[in-house]
């Protein structure tokens, strides 16, 4: 496989994101100073849409998905599906931050550049076919996200949380890398396909070494997706980061980590499923219970959503447990669908949280939301719909995601796991409903003066809510923009099929 131009065309979305990331800080100085924040936001938004257009065109052109760059990377439908998801998350976040950053007086150039770099890392994560390129993706993404999460530089709390994130993240990267080294030692390759071949051939005397490496790699990946007991960074970072960044982390970063996890499990470690399935099942159960039980007692809505995101990681880990070598298996596409549903929902909620928070992010306790429905009926309704989606009530995308995921799990014979999932869904009802109850059924106590200014955030929220409802009930492409449940499902299936 020699280098040719065609390979660069294939990774055009990745290149575009990198170029935009480099280019944005350069145009910043020529923009009028007082309006710079808005311009940067809109330029980024348009850039993301352009990139998404290219990715869509590639997806429509039925990419071959052949590994390129000596087998390090493949821009297959799977990678493109996730690329589109990351870009969508980025675009919605950009709408919010366009007004959020000026209000909080945060720097603009670096922010969007970092966002683009993190998306570049995510695309590498989604398309990497070798443990080395995947590790690179993890690092590119994480470095940018560390900086984004600590963007409120003057806040001690934010600094503390990001330091914690950074140390734990570096530590887990080291563990992951150590695992990769051991796997390489055992199999003689870092390419996922090569690892699978080696496993299919029987492994032999070096199998224990491989299993050790695989265990370390799973720990590293478990850290990135925030699976218990590797989740401890999540609540602090989610609370300390600026709300739109938290939204971005809860959606794009989580989706990228799962893209990574899913691809490694499906195309690399699948022949050794007997060795890891118990571990992942145990992780899934532990993660679900940890997330759902600890979410009960959180007064801060961002912290509550952090635990909720841990819980949702648990549900998706169930999907990983249900993976199988058969291309007919629905578990992979279920995880993809679930990620889309979950991302839309969290983007919507965090846009609302950004909208409702005062400068300096006051009013982020659930109690502060008492009576929001009277003051901001549309935002309250949007949060309520998002909460119902997180619970998994029809007709939202969250319901359909859960349905599809649990179906896949039951189908693979893990009915007990699905029952635990259902029990956890029941547990989650209480703390999600608490937010709705507070918004609608309590009298306002907080002082809402000074809230507002986030223009167009309502637009972002509306897009999310329409998408949540439509992805839950739609059976066709609405306006060729919002894929309903059926087209989204078939897209997820197509995407996963490129892993086989």
């Amino acid at each position, binding site marked *: 496989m020699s280098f040719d131009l065609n390979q660069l065309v294939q990774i055009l979305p990745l290149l575009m994101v990198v170029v935009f990331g480099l280019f944005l800080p350069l145009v910043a100085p020529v923009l009028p100073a007082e309006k710079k924040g808005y311009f940067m936001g809109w330029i980024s938004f348009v850039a993301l849409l352009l990139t998404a257009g290219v990715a869509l065109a590639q997806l429509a052109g039925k990419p071959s998905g052949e590994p390129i760059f000596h087998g390090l990377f493949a821009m297959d439908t799977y990678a493109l599906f996730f690329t589109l998801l990351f870009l969508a998350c980025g675009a919605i976040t950009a709408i919010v931050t366009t007004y959020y950053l000026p209000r909080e007086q945060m720097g603009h150039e670096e922010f969007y550049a970092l966002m683009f770099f993190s998306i570049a890392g995510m695309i590498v994560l989604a398309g990497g076919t070798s443990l080395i390129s995947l590790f690179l993706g993890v690092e590119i993404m994480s470095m940018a996200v560390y900086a984004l999460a600590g963007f409120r530089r003057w806040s001690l709390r934010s600094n503390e949380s990001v330091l914690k994130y950074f140390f734990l993240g570096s530590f887990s990267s080291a563990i992951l890398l150590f695992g990769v080294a051991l796997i390489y030692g055992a199999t003689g390759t870092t390419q996922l396909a090569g690892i699978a071949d080696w496993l299919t051939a029987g492994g032999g005397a070096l199998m224990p070494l491989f299993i050790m490496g695989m265990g370390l790699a799973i720990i590293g990946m478990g850290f990135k997706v925030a699976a218990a007991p590797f989740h401890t960074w999540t609540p602090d970072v989610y609370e300390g980061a600026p709300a739109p960044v938290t939204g971005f982390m809860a959606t794009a970063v989580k989706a990228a980590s799962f893209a990574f996890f899913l691809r490694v499990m499906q195309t690399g470690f699948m022949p050794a499923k007997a060795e890891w399935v118990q571990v992942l099942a145990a992780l899934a159960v532990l993660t679900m219970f940890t997330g759902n039980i600890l979410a009960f007692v959180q007064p801060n809505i961002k912290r509550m959503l952090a635990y909720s995101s841990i819980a949702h990681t648990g549900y998706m880990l169930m999907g990983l447990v249900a993976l199988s070598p058969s291309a007919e298996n629905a578990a992979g596409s279920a995880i993809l669908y679930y990620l889309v549903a979950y991302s839309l929902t969290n983007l919507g909620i965090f846009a609302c949280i950004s909208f409702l928070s005062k400068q300096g992010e006051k009013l982020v306790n659930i109690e502060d939301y008492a009576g929001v*429905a*009277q003051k901001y*009926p549309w935002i309250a309704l949007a949060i309520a719909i998002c909460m*119902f989606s997180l*619970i998994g*009530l*029809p*007709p939202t995308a969250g*319901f359909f995601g859960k*349905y*599809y995921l*649990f*179906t896949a799990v*039951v*189908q693979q014979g893990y*009915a007990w796991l*699905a*029952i635990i999932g*259902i029990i956890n*869904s*029941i547990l989650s*009802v*209480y703390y999600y*409903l608490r937010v*709705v*109850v507070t918004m*609608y*059924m*309590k009298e306002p106590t907080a002082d809402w003066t000074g809230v507002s200014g986030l223009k167009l955030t309502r637009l972002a929220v509306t897009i999310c809510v329409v998408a949540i409802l439509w992805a839950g*009930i739609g*059976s066709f492409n609405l306006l060729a923009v919002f894929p309903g*449940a*059926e087209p989204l*499902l*078939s897209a997820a299936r197509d995407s996963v099929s490129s892993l086989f």
Partner: protein
Amino acid sequence: MSHLLSILILLPVMASLGMLLIPADRKPVIKTWALGASLLNLALGLGLWFGFKPEAGFQFAEKADWLPSLGISYHIGVDGLSLLIAMLTLILTPVAILASWNRIQHKLRGYYACMLLLGSGMLGAVVARDLFLFYVFWEVMLLPMFFMIGVWGGEKRVFATTKFVVYTLVGSLLMFLAILYVYFKHQALNGTWTFDIPSLYALSYSPTEMWLLFGAFFLAFAIKTPVWPFHSWLPDAYTQAPTPATFMLSAVMAKIGAYGFLRFLIPMFPEATRTAAPFIMLLGMFGLLYGAWIALVQTDAKRLIAYSSLSHMSIIVMGIFALNQFGITGSVFYFMAHAMATGALFLLVMMLAERRGTREIAQFGGIAKAAPWLTVAFIFITMASVGLPGLNGFVGEFLMLMGAYGAANPIGVIATTGVIWSACYMLWLVSRIFFGEITRPENQGFKDLTLREAFIILPLAALIAWTGFYPQTVLSKVEPSVQAFLQQTGFAAAVEAKAAPADGESHTPAAPAAHADGH
């Protein structure tokens, strides 16, 4: 292919979206809009009633692919079992809106939107012919109720609504898992993915599977109905909800739980049903007596009616699980009778409470002189509720108790005493509120029924009288479907064998009802 059902489901949704365009301070416009939409829906819905052909099985059917790759379709239709509940939804929504007229003073748009959406959800749940679609509507109808109790309810509304939702969701999420299991089982046996309800009937299961699935479905419907001992959400939710919402809860939503037994539980697991039926009848009997006894000692009139509703729903459960023509026909008939009587009682108590600001029974007394029409209305409805011959409650109760005798003699006998208890607490309630000396000065010059209130009660009273006097109007629509139901589930043979001694003269349930007219 007629699209009537879809229109009936969608029209309230559209109306509630349209309501958002009305400025929030134009309260009369909002109320009129909601009332108009529900009346229009009712007018269209009359086509359903008069166009319904009793012998023709499922009608007004519509089918469209929804998510074809998963075997999920938008498939709806009505038969005799669902027709009555569908009609109840359509008839009672305008009544509830009219009853809310003065009761609801703030956030009207949200309230009336909830009311309209509730109607859509309930209608969708009863006409769904696809299990997945049913589940979607089943959950959707929960949400407006959650808001109605929580936002416009009484003092402990937040507690009540949370309890209500959590209880219901525990049941329905477990049912969801069971639905998935059945779906896979069908695929394993027949090789196709489908949620089509008739295809999922009576699959063959191992005993363990069967009982677990049966349990999951039973729990969901038992909580919704509610069946004793799964009722503990009921007193809180019924009492704390704004009365028009209580009215919809008891009159329609509870029936959908009972309807779930008929449509899903029994046909899907006939074997398990055969074994479990006596025990469930026993639960029904306990519920009947328990509800009645607890009702006797209530001091709050609304809570008293709530427990009486529990008691009456328990008879319905008994009637259904008698698994014979009398029991089931009676239950389906009583869906309507109970909805009218108990619903109207809730509304009447609301009218009393609006005048005095309290629902405590001891605060009333001797108001019959000042408010004769209100008294007449209350007594008339009470008579329907306790099963006075000639009114529709009697027809239903009589048929259900006949069914219970046929299925299990001792249970039938004991259950009959429940009817006596219901007379006790209701008549005692009437005497304490309306008769005796006026002990409190506030009750002097008690305001009588207003015209609006009369319009709330009149349609209910007229239907109670008509269907009691000539139950054939309703029974003729129901019976063929019940027969088909019994044939298909394999319980038909039991009817001939067991019901015959109970009713020597005739096999048609219309006979006892006609007999009743003579009184």
